[in-house]
């Protein structure tokens, strides 16, 4: 086996040193009836690298890669161009094969990167402090709701109906067990987000209001208004963002009054990867909330010679110290994805992120204009960033499947996201990024036109 360095000679010498007659003697504590006699049945025997690569390449070939066709899917996962140097850096063995930086003297690479990452997220979100990452946007969203409960000592969360349904489901799943109450609005199919409806649900028992920005339908709710309403009742505003590129064009949630900002970082540096690993982002506007945050935090300090350095800190919030009293059970997070994000964001910088956002918006406007004039197609949104909702005369679920057969990936149907809402069956979410070409847009328009004719 190419990954196993011991030779049979080594094994014999080692067993002799240990004083064991054979390797079976080392498994003496395992009841014999629980030990398998030979290699387990049901798995093949070992295979050469070439054979394995061929097998996996064959499976990969059975998927339609996003970049190989006109592609408009979004709904919380976006296809963006990632510079080649990002992947080069995350493949450096020193980053890729390191563990959590528990020994800071020999982990400054990871630690300084995390400090830079936290700083980038804090600025992007308009917050004071960000943590060193969560699993993904949806789990970060639940952790934010749980944190709001700890901060406010209340357990009623008011959730926008235009929060990504998967995120809503994750929160509801957890709430079933923790006893938190979830008041969620229905998705309102209208040009503007239903701020009034949301605000009307806030009461004195409300721990938090959860709003997505841009929302699942691509709309841009006025956060300031909701923040004021929440704060007046002593509730926190949690803002969820699933497209960080948008923040190069729109005002950050923190600046608009959000108390906790969470989101999905996949757009920057990480890639689609069929849903994971992704990158959960988590930040708080007010530094006094830091000790209620979940997840790892990297902080600045000095070494014995006074040199600046970085360590994991405030770990008394965490499970490995506080056990059942921890702020979360999270241990392993998304370190390498955080690195990818941070490298990509460093390449972009203020200037690049703004240009990237502008280019996304420019192309999305073209797409919206091109598609919304088709017969049987109506644009829902008043405003949007790089994703918008089309209302089709027909079942969007079926249309998406039909166009896939014609090698056009048209978007995400609202019917798939909201299976219990037949009234949304005509809805199609269309995402446009800098990777979308005008030919792609025209291909989608032509296919839709034919389908709806």
């Amino acid at each position, binding site marked *: *086996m190419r*990954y196993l360095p*011991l030779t049979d000679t080594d094994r014999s010498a080692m067993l002799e040193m*240990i004083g064991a007659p054979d390797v079976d003697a080392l498994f003496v504590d395992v*009841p014999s009836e629980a030990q398998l006699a030979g290699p387990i049945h049901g*798995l093949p025997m*070992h*295979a050469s690298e070439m054979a394995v*690569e061929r097998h996996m390449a064959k499976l990969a070939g*059975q*998927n*339609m890669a996003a*970049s190989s066709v006109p592609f408009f899917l979004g*709904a919380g996962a976006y296809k963006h161009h990632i*510079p080649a140097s990002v992947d080069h850096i*995350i493949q450096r063995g*020193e980053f890729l094969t390191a*563990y959590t930086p528990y020994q*800071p*003297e*020999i982990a400054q690479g990871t630690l*300084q*990167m995390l*400090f830079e990452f936290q700083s980038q997220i804090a600025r992007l979100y308009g917050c004071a*402090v*960000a943590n060193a990452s969560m699993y993904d946007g949806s*789990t970060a969203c639940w952790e934010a709701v749980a944190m709001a409960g700890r901060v406010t000592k209340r357990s009623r969360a008011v959730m926008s109906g235009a929060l990504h*349904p*998967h995120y809503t489901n*994750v929160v509801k*799943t957890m709430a079933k067990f923790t006893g938190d109450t979830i008041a969620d609005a229905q998705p309102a199919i209208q040009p503007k987000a239903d701020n009034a409806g949301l605000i009307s649900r806030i009461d004195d028992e409300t721990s938090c209001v959860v709003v997505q920005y841009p929302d699942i339908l691509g709309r*841009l709710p006025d956060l300031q208004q909701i923040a004021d309403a929440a704060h007046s009742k002593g509730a926190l505003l949690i803002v969820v963002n699933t497209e960080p590129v948008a923040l190069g064009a729109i005002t950050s949630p923190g600046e608009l009054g959000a108390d906790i900002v969470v989101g*999905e970082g996949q757009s920057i540096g990480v890639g*689609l*990867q*069929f849903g*994971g*690993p992704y990158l959960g982002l988590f930040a708080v506007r007010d530094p006094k909330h830091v000790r209620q945050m979940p997840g790892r935090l990297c*902080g*600045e*300090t*000095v*070494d*014995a010679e006074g*040199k600046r350095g970085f360590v994991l*800190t405030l770990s008394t919030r965490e499970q490995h110290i506080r*056990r059942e009293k921890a702020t979360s*059970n999270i*241990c392993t997070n998304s*370190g*390498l994805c955080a690195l990818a994000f941070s490298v990509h964001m*460093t*390449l*972009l*910088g*203020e*200037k690049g992120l703004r240009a*990237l956002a502008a280019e996304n918006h420019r192309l999305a406007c073209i797409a919206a204009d091109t598609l919304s004039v088709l017969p049987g197609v109506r644009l829902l949104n008043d405003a949007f960033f790089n994703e918008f909702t089309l209302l089709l005369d027909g079942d969007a679920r079926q249309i*998406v499947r039909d166009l896939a057969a014609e090698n056009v990936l048209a978007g995400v149907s609202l019917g798939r996201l909201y299976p219990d809402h037949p009234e949304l069956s005509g809805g199609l979410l269309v995402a446009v990024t*800098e990777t979308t070409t005008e030919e792609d847009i025209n291909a989608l328009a032509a296919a839709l036109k034919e389908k709806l004719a």
Partner: protein
Amino acid sequence: LDEALIFEIGDKNTTGVDLPEPDTNAPNRLGGMERAADIGLPGLSEPETVRHYTRLSRQNYAIDLGLFPLGSCTMKHNPRLNEKVARMPGFADLHPMAPTSTTQGALAVIYQLAEWLKTLTGMPAVAMSPKAGAHGELCGILAIRAALEARGDARKVVLCPESAHGTNPATAAFAGYEVEDIPATPEGRVDLAALEARLGPDVAAVMITNPNTCGLFERDFRKIADAVHAAGGLVYCDGANFNAIVGRVRPGDLGVDAMHINLHKTFSTPHGGGGPGSGPVVFSEALAPFAPLPFVEKTVDGYELVEEETAGDHHQLSFGRMTAFHGQMGMFTRALTYMLSHGADGLKQVSEDAVLNANYILRSLEDVLFAPYADSGPCMHEALFGDKGFAEGMTTLDLAKGLIDEGFHPMTMYFPLVVHGAMLVEPTETESKAALDQFIGAMRSVAERAIAGDQSLKTAPHYAPMRRLDETLAARKPVLAWSDPGLV
């Protein structure tokens, strides 16, 4: 040379990408939300970026540089084939909500991996979506709670050994349970009698790590499981140490109801400086119906993704959804590639070599370091030592920092809590005998210094990129983000 922060090197006008200059006068459809103020993000050109991160990386220790003996963390070699496969466009450039007619190969990967995880654990069901080990624990405990609630049985307590990973009690608490300790025997295993005495109608589950965090196999696991089941409870097994038995022992044969598997430990997906992980959870028949969405089924028409839209009646007991999409696909491709590479014969060799390497270390060092359970027989995949015998004032931390100067990453320290000054050493199977001998020599040398009271150990490391860092200062006055307002 110290490496400056990106905020000190970069500025807001530099960028490492070439994008069209935005037309600032173009009309927009942002509905009045357009950004006015600067964000404050520094940019670097590509050469500066590559150099910054390359230099930073060189301040890290990593498996690629040497043995990484963190007990319970299973830091084994990460094959580069796995990285290559994960980057094939058919896997890496695939949207999670693409129509399933266009993702059959990806669904096949998830399905195949799920099948083999069931085979290797001898369990009938698996949930693939948990994002890491602790998330898997949560998944298992939620399934247990859902199953108990489904039979109207609102038990309140979860029992964990003192030696458990911190995630175990944290998870149980996160799922709304009270946590109580299970005592250990002097030889480092769960005290069966004490456990049996505690069982009762309020105990929902026990969470036991096996092999346990003392590096020992829980000989009485089957008896424990039977007792828990007899008392109406369920058995959660923490699978963090599955590498010791993979391919040789099936947890399903021991009475386990739920167990998570850290793909980033046993199946060699890279740790990446702290993640991403991946924590699929296998379930017994009792828990299978409560598994979370989504999952992949095989039908005559191909692979089907079962989620809210398609779950329908036959999955109505599912306790819900744990994450937005289908789990850590990038880790699935790597883990499956690793399994195909090793095969049934190779995986058996993996656990055997892992255990052999650990015992070799245990027996090579027990004369110089206190090994509390050495007389209990062989260890499994990790060897446990304590600080008994160190000179006055000398600590496990000092030994660890001294080991850094010898060119090695330290072992896990002060865990498990049941041994004073614990040192938990897990070499894994991907270390050669020569590498082990080098490590043993280094450990022996540092241990002898700790016993002799060599004060220079107190200020170690001396030869690392940094000297000992002030963690107290960091926590007392937290500086958690760059805050210089002078970025230009």
